[in-house]
């Protein structure tokens, strides 16, 4: 058997093994864990790209763990949808690993740094596992791995509030996991199988069963909690705000996206769209809830003074967009939703990384800390501008692409009244982002600058001097910003994959 055929499992196993190896070898050299983490995530990225191309070439890949035939054994399945999500997740994981080196040094206690890298690997393992598995119980297991790793990473924040945030997340995350587990229990009782492909076949006959209805209800609530759908988002702002910047980056860019993947997979893959619409009005409920998320999340973001919590609330709003696109349940909107998984990961990742750079240089997390920074950190601020404009949905950035699809999808679904919701969301995000961009380039009053020296009559002050974050942080951040533009100008490549995934889901 060739190694290539083992890729679906290697992408899980390798980071898992290195999660254990890092604490051992990390004592030898301080930067070794960082190098290992970057190498491994790079490997994951290459593998997922390979899987993506294979899927595009040959269609669905199925891998039987240990050679056990499903439904007895666990099956790993790669199709259009999860190949796409795998690529997004592993790419972001790689970029964040590169970025993490200096940021972790600055923000996490020295004695916890080794633990961080080890847990980080576990976190990635969990994320990739959720996406690649074709077995619903296995999905639950990976979900728990991710969550446990997440609790630990958030608790590593410098402030004591991080512990509270982590504890909050722990409680709510556990409730969510329990709900999901109960849901799994119910459908296992109803169908006698845990394999997703099997479930797809057997469930339609049982759509009238009350047990299946209850299972869907449990899944919906559990998953909504996990992906922080308003009003079940309460754990998210605290977690993103107090976690170390690297952790905020990786969680904002990937963890909720995987939650959304799980939702797409279970609500549309396992259950069918007809079921969601005709048997219980779950789609309608989610449309209302996600519209509320778009408006409320963005509105609350305006009121925040802490940069990270502003971005966190903005995530709540953006998650609303993704869920809205998904539950409109037509091909166009679903394409928008799937492409927004990538787009939002790019822009929110970039924004949180910018915050990390600022914290690294100045230690300030407040919005006012950005005032007049265009001279000090021109590149970081340029990234902020680009990613911010994406968030506003300005054309030629990725934000516009997803918004376009979701809006046209809403019209195709005959729900023109959702257009104002979508538009209001982007106007509100324009308020909180543009306010900051103006402050960066046209500051109202600068904090009393420290006079450094005088150069031929012109006073050179602290505010004018160039003092940019280190390249190991800056370069990955800029890569994301460039992609925000690139995929905004030429979105055809990711769109074609997203479209295939949407077709697959809406069949």
């Amino acid at each position, binding site marked *: 058997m060739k190694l290539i055929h083992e890729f679906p499992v290697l992408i899980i196993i390798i980071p898992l093994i290195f999660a254990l190896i890092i604490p051992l070898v990390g004592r030898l050299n301080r930067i070794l864990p960082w190098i290992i983490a970057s190498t491994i995530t790079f490997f994951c990225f290459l593998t997922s790209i390979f899987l993506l191309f294979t899927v595009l070439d040959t269609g669905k890949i199925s891998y039987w763990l240990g050679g056990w035939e499903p439904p007895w054994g666990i099956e790993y399945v790669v199709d259009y949808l999860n190949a796409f999500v795998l690529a997004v997740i592993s790419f972001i994981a790689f970029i964040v690993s590169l970025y993490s080196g200096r940021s972790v040094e600055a923000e996490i206690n020295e004695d916890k740094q080794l633990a961080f890298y080890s847990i980080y690997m576990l976190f990635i393992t969990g994320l990739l596992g959720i996406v690649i598995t074709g077995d619903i119980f296995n999905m639950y297991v990976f979900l728990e791995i991710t969550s446990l790793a997440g609790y630990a990473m958030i608790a590593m924040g410098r402030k004591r509030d991080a512990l509270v945030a982590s504890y909050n997340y722990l409680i709510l995350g556990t409730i969510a996991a329990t709900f999901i587990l109960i849901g799994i229990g119910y459908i296992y009782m109803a169908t006698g199988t845990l394999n997703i492909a099997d479930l797809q076949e057997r469930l339609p006959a049982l759509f009238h069963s009350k047990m299946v209805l209850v299972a869907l209800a449990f899944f919906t609530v559990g998953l909504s909690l996990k992906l922080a759908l308003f009003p079940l988002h309460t754990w998210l702002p605290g977690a993103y705000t107090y976690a170390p910047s690297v952790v905020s980056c990786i969680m904002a860019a990937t963890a909720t996206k995987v939650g959304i993947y799980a939702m797409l997979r279970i609500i549309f893959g396992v259950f069918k769209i007809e079921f969601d619409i005709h048997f219980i009005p779950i789609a309608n409920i989610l449309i209302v809830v996600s519209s509320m998320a778009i408006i409320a999340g963005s509105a609350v973001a305006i009121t925040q003074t802490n940069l990270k919590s502003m971005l966190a609330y903005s995530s709540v709003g953006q998650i609303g967009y993704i869920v809205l696109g998904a539950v409109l349940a037509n091909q166009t909107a679903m394409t928008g939703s799937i492409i927004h998984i990538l787009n939002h990961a790019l822009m929110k990742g970039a924004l949180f990384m910018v915050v990390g750079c600022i914290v690294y240089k100045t230690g300030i997390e407040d919005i006012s800390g950005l005032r007049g920074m265009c001279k000090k950190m021109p590149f970081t601020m340029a990234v902020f501008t680009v990613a911010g404009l994406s968030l506003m949905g300005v*054309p030629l950035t990725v934000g516009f692409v997803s918004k376009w699809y979701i809006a046209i999808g809403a019209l195709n679904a005959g729900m023109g009244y959702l*257009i*104002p919701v979508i*538009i209001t969301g982007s*106007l509100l995000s*324009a308020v909180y982002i*543009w306010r900051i961009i103006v402050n960066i380039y046209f500051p109202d009053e600068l904090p009393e600058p420290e006079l450094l020296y005088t150069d031929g009559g012109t006073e050179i002050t602290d505010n004018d001097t160039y003092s940019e974050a280190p390249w190991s942080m800056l370069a990955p951040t800029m890569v994301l910003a460039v992609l925000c533009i690139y995929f905004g100008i*030429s*979105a055809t490549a990711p769109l074609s994959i997203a479209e295939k995934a949407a077709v697959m889901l809406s069949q």
Partner: protein
Amino acid sequence: MVTPLCAVALIIIFSNKPNLRESWTILASLIKFGLIVFMLPTILDGKVIECAIVTVLPGLDIKFKIDALGIFFALTASFLWILTSFYSIGYVRTLNEHAQTRYFICFAVAISATIGVAFSANMFTTYLFYEMITFSTYALVAHKETPEARQGAKAYFVFLFGTSVAFLLSAIFLTYYATGTLDFSNQGIFNDARGKGLSDIFLIVTFGLFIAGTSKAAMMPFHAWLPRAMVAPTPVSAFLHAVAVVKSGIFVVVKIVLHLFGINLLAELRLGIVLAYCASFTMIVSSVIALRQDNLKARLAYSTVAQLSYVIFGVALLTPSGITGSIMHIVIHAFGKITLFFCAGAIYVAAHKTKISELDGIGRKMPFTMVAFSLASLSIIGVPPLGGFISKWYLIKGVIEAGEIALIAVLVVSTILNACYFLPVVYKAFFKELPQGETTERKEAPALMVVPLVLTTAGTLLLFFVPSIFLDLAKMVVAGLN
């Protein structure tokens, strides 16, 4: 199109050497104008140049199509850019403005976006460049970085970006959903898609959204940004708020009327007449407001609001002469108003005066400037032998063709109001005594500023005697509609 963007790079590179940096601006403006003139004969032959740049997503392309209307606008904008570049250099250097590099960069981006609007082949490309203008000019409006500048810039952004996202974007969504295309068509996209059973209500709502969304056209009640944006340095007000920003708004409205809806459809729904009355309202009311402004730039701003509505008025008549008049008014008003703004800037630079009440006798100190000012205001009023007469002539002809005689009264009243707010300024400048303590010694602004404004004045005269190129283009647009 690309020339200014190359210039941006060069401006950044040479930001420390002012002379070199400005020469790039000038060079870019000349090359650009040259390119547009080079394309002119092809267009006059009745051909259309098309080029597709990139497909953003299936159904949405960035695509350019250079037709008569587009080249008409591009020609105006790029010619005036050359003059404005010279004028800007004079202005910012004399006043020793800060952040000059940023200033020239944003200027170059704004002009390339304007040309982008002029040449776009579909509504998506238009929208894209329309937003780009907003973003790039924001920095110009906020240039002074004083609290008032920031306030003005904020209002500017809220109005322009807010309405374009809230209304224009929604309207584009609806258009794409209903017709499946955004490519401009000569008879109008909606007119072509009549067979799909679109309800009247849907069309009326979409049209309303489109008009509300193009707030750059400054039709009431979406005009409030324009007077506030006058905090910008004067060359910015001159070029952007007499030519690039407002005219691109107007241009988009013209495109919407002619190429999205089509005159036949609008006539059938009687939306044209509604739009014409809205425009009339703006014409009268903002002229009355202009009467009461003492700040020269504010008066010019309200005059702009009124004059822009002339263009909308003309195209809303939906008759050949009306459309010709309205297209002609784009260029004629551009020349007239840019001269007036140039004069306001020259007065500010030479005498540091901004209020009309301070202008007593200034004609003796700055004869060139004030003669130019008088001629330009006469052109805007519509007195022959100045350009303004031509557009007004066509507009009146258009009204008669449309059979809405009541609207002639509007034109007459508005013309009287125009005279009321311009002539006192001229009178004061030439016939009143200078305030005590000021000598009658000649004190003009630097030549870099005076020469452009003399040239634009000459332009308004020329437009009366040899309007042929522009008039031909305008007639081609009208002919292309059938």
